[in-house]
């Protein structure tokens, strides 16, 4: 970043520093539903000074995004501010006219939204969408605007910006789209930037690059940032001041370091204790000090016992090639999703397959589950080559390997009751009679700590964590040897994530299960895995025990992934 950035319209002058840029007082927001008013935000106070970075931390449904959207009057659906005040730079937002709000949006308050995939209009070119922000706020017009668009995209860290501006969103990767969205948000040099989980949909290494860049830009421009995240480690690393929200209320706020070291509210204490990014950091620093960490750790981790365990799965030189159809005859291409992958998993241990999106880890999982056939190579399951199985043997084999998928909303049939969902595999494999199956479902629900009454309910009546418990119960129904967890906790809130990981660890100790744990998140790996394979573009680049990978990563790529776990700069 050699070019000089144009200064923000407001220079952080000494006299301004102690006047809040944004002051929210006793804010209440409610949504009208069929059953009446539901309050989402209940009496929130929040202050942001010019140039300051404040983070709101909370899980889904805590009201953090609703608070942020209230600031620019973009509450979804029936949402309404019912009480309190939002004072921004001398304007009372709750009573401002539509015209005043439009003048503030973009010009004084920028928004970097959460999901880069859905936040750019797919039918307009990137450059056009950036230019709109310039024109709407009277910054530049015509060819001057075009030149400015290129500058802004470059500034946001998009290489080859002039050419890229002429492309459509679908030609951009997620990280590039998020850079374009940052360019849009900063186009009119706002005084306040609201960053609503700006990177949670991106790969970890990209996440880090983009946050670094955003931090650098806002510091240089003197922009105040309201950063919204569910990850306490990330918040503490990026913001000076933290605001912890729980069920629509601010439960604790203060300087980041203070909240991490001495959380006062019980909820914050639980967050500090279970956020995977923080937990994995703590395990590392505890090990460095020679202290045994009290954290959740894989039951067989580094105990030496695993050396003597028999191999249950041996993957040999696995390769999977996909054929992509070309635009015209002869233009068809092939794509190697998995390239010569070999590893073994010992019975009763957890193997983590780590990689970013597109690394081929899910393809390996699908081959393991025998959902797709490998192009080359084979999988030996306790000495049996899976490719030699006939239809009947394959059916029997499926009992022994069961999946748990990422999205508990998508992997349960909404029309099936929980009982039917868990009972289905038993019925398919003709296990027991009606009565014994009912008993089995009861036992399984007990095992995953769900009440018996759950049986009669439907997926839409359960929370994300409960649904994932149901998915685990269903996977356990056939008493498998191996469970393939494909990003099984990535869609869950941190506290729920910690609970599910504990459950998986307990079940492993109790039932001697073997896990193939597919994830992009090394922080989770630290807590559950015995062995780690790091995948990149279809190949395994590093394979070792979890301790080794964390203590002495050999590959540059592994080091990058490790550095991307939030909280590297925090001390414990």
């Amino acid at each position, binding site marked *: 970043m050699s070019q000089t950035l144009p200064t923000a319209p407001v220079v952080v002058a000494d006299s301004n520093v102690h006047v809040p840029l944004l002051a929210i007082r006793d804010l209440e927001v409610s949504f009208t539903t069929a059953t009446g008013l539901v309050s989402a935000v209940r009496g929130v106070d929040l202050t942001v000074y010019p140039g300051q970075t404040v983070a709101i931390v909370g899980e889904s449904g805590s009201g953090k995004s609703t608070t942020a959207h209230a600031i620019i009057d973009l509450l979804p659906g029936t949402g309404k501010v019912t009480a309190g005040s939002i004072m921004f730079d001398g304007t009372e937002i709750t009573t401002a006219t539509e015209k005043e709000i439009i003048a503030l949006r973009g010009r004084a308050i920028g928004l970097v*939204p959460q999901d880069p995939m859905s936040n750019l209009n797919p039918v307009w070119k990137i450059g056009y969408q950036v230019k709109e922000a310039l024109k709407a706020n009277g910054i530049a017009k015509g060819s001057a605007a075009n030149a400015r668009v290129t500058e802004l995209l470059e500034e946001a860290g998009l290489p080859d910006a002039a050419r890229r501006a002429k492309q459509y969103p679908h030609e951009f990767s997620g990280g590039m789209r998020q850079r374009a969205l940052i360019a849009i948000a900063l186009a009119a040099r706002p005084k306040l930037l609201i960053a609503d989980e700006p990177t949670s949909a991106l790969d970890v290494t990209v996440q880090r690059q983009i946050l670094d860049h955003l931090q650098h830009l806002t510091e240089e421009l003197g922009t105040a940032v309201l950063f919204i995240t569910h990850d306490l480690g990330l918040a503490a690393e990026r913001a000076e001041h933290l605001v912890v929200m729980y069920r629509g209320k601010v439960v604790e706020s203060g300087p980041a370091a203070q909240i991490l070291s001495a959380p006062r509210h019980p909820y914050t204490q639980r967050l500090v204790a279970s956020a995977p990014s923080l937990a994995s950091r703590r395990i590392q620093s505890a090990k460095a000090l020679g202290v045994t960490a009290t954290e959740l750790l894989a039951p067989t981790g580094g105990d030496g016992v695993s050396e003597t365990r028999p191999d249950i799965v041996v993957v040999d030189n696995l390769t999977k090639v996909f054929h992509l159809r070309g635009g015209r005859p002869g233009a068809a291409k092939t794509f190697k999703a998995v390239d010569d992958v070999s590893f073994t998993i010992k019975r009763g241990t957890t193997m983590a397959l780590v990689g970013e999106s597109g690394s081929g880890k899910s393809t390996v999982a699908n081959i393991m589950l025998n959902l797709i056939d490998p192009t080359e190579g084979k999988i030996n399951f306790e000495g049996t080559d899976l490719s030699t199985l006939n239809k009947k043997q394959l059916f029997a084999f499926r009992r022994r390997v069961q999946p748990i998928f990422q999205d508990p909303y998508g992997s349960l049939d909404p029309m099936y009751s929980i009982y039917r969902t868990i009972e289905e595999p038993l019925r398919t494999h003709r296990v027991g009679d009606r009565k014994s199956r009912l008993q089995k479902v009861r036992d399984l629900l007990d095992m995953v700590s769900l009440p018996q009454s759950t049986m009669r309910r439907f997926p839409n009546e359960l929370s994300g964590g409960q649904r994932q418990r149901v998915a685990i119960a269903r996977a356990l129904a056939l008493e498998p040897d191996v469970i393939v967890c494909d990003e099984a906790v990535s869609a869950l809130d941190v506290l729920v994530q910690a609970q599910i990981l504990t459950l998986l660890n307990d079940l492993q100790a109790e039932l001697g299960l073997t896990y193939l744990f597919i994830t992009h998140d090394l922080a989770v790996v630290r807590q559950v895995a015995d062995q780690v394979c790091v995948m990149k573009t279809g190949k395994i680049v590093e394979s070792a025990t979890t301790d080794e990978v964390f203590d002495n990563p050999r590959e540059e790529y592994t080091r990058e992934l490790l550095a991307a776990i939030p909280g590297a700069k925090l001390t414990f």
Partner: protein
Amino acid sequence: MAWYIGRRVLQMIPVFLGATLLIYAMVFLLPGDPVAALGGDRGLNPAVAEQIRAEFNLDKPFFVQYLLYLKGILTLDFGTTFSGRAVIDVMGEAFPVTIQLAVMALIFEGVLGIGFGLIAGLRKGGVFDATLLLVSLFVIAMPTFVIGFVMQYVVGVKLQWLPPTVGGDVSFQTLLMPAIVLGAVSFAYVLRLTRTSVAENLSADFVRTATAKGLTRSRVVNVHVLRNSLIPVITFLGADLGGLMAGAIVTEGIFNIPGVGNTLYKAIQQGQAPTVVSLVTVLVIVYIFANLFVDLLYAALDPRIRYA
């Protein structure tokens, strides 16, 4: 792109062959002897009947008849009707009328359907929206011939605002009412489709981002909501164009319009295979081209669509 169009045109060959064979077979299998029917109650002189059969190849086996017919088409000879007119002339008279009618109906349902649908979508849940939903449901539930006869009687005969029938006088004015009747049901569908699509896009993330940029409401709607919402509507309209042309049979009957529908109806009744097959084949080709056009238009509206 060129490859894509080329492939689509090549795909028309099997569709063309299949459609003509199927239609030819169906007409061939129609009960009754068309030649005998020509003579009415008195019956034809057997020698004359033989001569007509020979002239129209009706004495040959089915496949030979079909191949002879195909051979004719390739030299643009669509055969003649029993009364001796060239089928191509008959088509030349009927098609312009039907095309004019279909295009007028398409414009009516497109402009009004999208316009009202947009307003209803923007004011979802309001009085305007509720009224339009009720009206559109009513129109969809009502058979076309009922709408046709009622409009013909009220607007044409009682109020005398528009001519009640067309007859030989084909003009914008005489075709206006038939076009509205023909497009009525599709108008209701377009309206509902646009409304749903607009309402859905209004809550899309990119629309919120556009608003957060500081754009005015009208710009957000025109630039970010409308174009995206039109994608499914255009698909429907394109597929409907073919349907409008073929489906005009009822409407053309009610208003006595000398178009394809009327001609086709008479030809089927008389078992005139060359006329029926030729008309239907052209309709099939029109349908295929309309679909190709829609696919191209689709890509113009949505850059994510690539011809692969």
